[in-house]
């Protein structure tokens, strides 16, 4: 990586232009002065080549999945196939206006319908809406569906959502945004749901329970059938956070486990690019009895013709149009690349890779949960903490060796959490190299702890002053003057 330190505004020069527009031979339009802005926006003035060189240099300050290994637990950083990018951006998809009459967009509607059908089959549910823009948005949709379901039954007491303390932050946040009260239950030491804790909070105010399975520590909730029975008997619904779906592809389905609603993260399980933080796509899926509540509009099919329909009992519209089409088209290509023949191999290899790393490093890293893990697992810091080297230090030192750090300090149930998810795309050689470097860093923590505690050393910037950034926020270019 190269430390390139210029902002686009700093290379701007008055009079330079990067655009190629011709003026039409039509009269200029003069708007009333009161409606016009006083000054032009101070946007850059640069040549096209300036833009290209600038953003190329900016990109070289980034670490992508194609640069190296990203063992981020809970993120499923797998390869983003180029064929997905190429085919999803064909002009017959890219140049289509969302408000075209349905007869003129049958190809897109077919992709939408087919994708949701495939996701439904993989999940063991009835149908999906691809309208939510991200996982958290899918969660919100799912929670709105839970509320709508209880409202329709005139069961207005149900205002609580139960969430385990190991859950991803979006779960309780989504519940709050949807107007629910969160009831947090303490997990077992392995992150699984404590049945007694669950029973203690289930009552006629329970709207539902949100779960990830396998959980955020990479452990499968083997009591899921009992959990499902308990929640349903109490009158609640069961929500599946699909962040860890990668582990169970080919092995089991959330619908079969008893989940009523799920969301899937296409940018995790189904290979769509992370884009530096988005766009993602968080389709929400439901069982038969909840179909009427799906967000509008719904894509339907009759005799091979596809069209939109609004459901009277829908939770409503969740966006201006129909979700991140360019993202779910990529997912569709991915689904068709694996097909029914190879989809099941994904879970097998993901789980094999995770267990391989776990077994190879458990002698020097603290493994709180014994036994086989699923597609990811947690280390609770170094076994030998005598030199005071923490998870954060290990993570930063890994950057020096050309790795992206694993997920750190999540899940919250372990104080020195380091969550590792290799995904199925990494070869044994890549894993062996990573295992080796982890051993090197663990040794450094013993022999030269200061080196690790002050890491990273080889990155273009090191140990940023985050407190200063928060106390004196500089959030736009003009703040710099």
């Amino acid at each position: 990586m190269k430390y390139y330190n210029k902002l686009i505004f700093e290379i701007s020069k008055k009079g330079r232009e990067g655009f190629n527009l011709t003026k039409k031979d039509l009269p200029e339009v003069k708007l009333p002065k009161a409606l016009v802005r006083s000054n032009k926006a101070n946007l850059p003035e640069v040549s096209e080549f300036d833009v290209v060189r600038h953003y190329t240099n900016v990109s070289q300050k980034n670490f992508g999945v194609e640069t190296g290994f990203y063992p981020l637990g809970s993120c499923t950083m797998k390869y983003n196939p180029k064929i997905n990018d190429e085919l999803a951006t064909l002009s017959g998809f890219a140049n289509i206006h969302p408000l075209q009459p349905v007869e003129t967009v049958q190809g897109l509607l077919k992709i939408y319908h087919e994708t949701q059908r495939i996701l439904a089959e993989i999940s063991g549910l009835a149908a999906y809406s691809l309208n939510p823009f991200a996982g958290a948005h899918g969660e919100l949709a799912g929670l709105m569906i839970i509320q709508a379901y209880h409202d329709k039954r005139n069961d207005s007491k149900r205002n609580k959502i139960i969430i385990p303390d190991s859950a991803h932050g979006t779960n309780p946040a989504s519940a709050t945004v949807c107007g629910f009260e969160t009831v947090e239950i303490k997990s077992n030491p392995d992150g699984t749901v404590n049945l007694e804790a669950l029973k203690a909070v289930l009552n006629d105010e329970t709207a539902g329970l949100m779960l990830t399975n396998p959980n955020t520590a990479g452990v499968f909730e083997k009591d899921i059938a009992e959990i499902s029975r308990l929640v349903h008997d109490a009158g609640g619904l069961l929500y599946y956070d699909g962040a860890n779906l990668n582990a169970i592809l080919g092995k089991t389905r959330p619908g079969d486990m008893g989940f009523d609603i799920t969301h899937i993260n296409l940018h995790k399980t189904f290979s769509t690019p992370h884009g530096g933080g988005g766009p993602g796509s968080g389709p929400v899926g439901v069982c038969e009895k909840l179909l009427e509540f799906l967000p509008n509009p719904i894509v339907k099919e009759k005799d091979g013709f596809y069209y939109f329909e609004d459901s009277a009992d829908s939770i409503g519209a969740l966006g201006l149009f129909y979700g991140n089409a360019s993202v779910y088209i990529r997912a569709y290509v991915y689904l068709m690349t694996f097909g029914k023949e190879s989809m099941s191999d994904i879970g097998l290899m993901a789980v094999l890779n995770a267990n391989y790393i776990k077994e190879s490093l458990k002698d020097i890293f603290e493994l709180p949960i014994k036994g086989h893990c699923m597609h990811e697992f947690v280390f609770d810091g170094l076994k030998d903490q005598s030199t005071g080297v923490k998870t954060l230090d290990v993570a930063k030192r890994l950057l020096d060796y050309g790795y992206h750090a694993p997920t750190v300090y999540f899940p919250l149930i372990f104080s020195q959490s380091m969550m590792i998810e290799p995904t199925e795309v990494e070869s044994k050689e890549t894993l062996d190299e990573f295992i080796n470097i982890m051993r090197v860093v663990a040794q450094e923590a013993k022999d030269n702890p200061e080196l690790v505690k002050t890491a990273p050393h080889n990155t273009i910037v090191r140990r940023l002053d985050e407190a200063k950034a928060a106390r004196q926020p500089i959030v736009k270019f003009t703040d710099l003057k």
Partner: protein
Amino acid sequence: MVLEGLLYSPSHEWLKVEGKTAFVGISDHAQHALGSVVFIELPRVGKTVKKGESFGAVESVKAASDMYLPVTGKILEVNSKLEGSPELLNDDPYGSWIVKIELVDESELSSLLTSEQYKPLSEE
């Protein structure tokens, strides 16, 4: 460390009684757990807050935490110096009071912890 002579709550606030009023702040354990404090949200003067209810929030780079009033009180003053320099809470947690309250029910004081009783909690 735990300063003698103050009263404490299990949620790591300290309280110093002065007649019918009291000063409230956060303990050394609290500031240490938070890390560098970057922002503090102070309550409105004149507001009455019940025992155990939140009277504001304190934010660090990696965490945000509500502060709970150890006893019921009416907010008389807030330490606005902290708004410009929230890091004072890290530098001097016992010297940087956050709110001054008028005590509403002095009997609530007996439910608070002495410095001896709080010490084990601060070591968790």
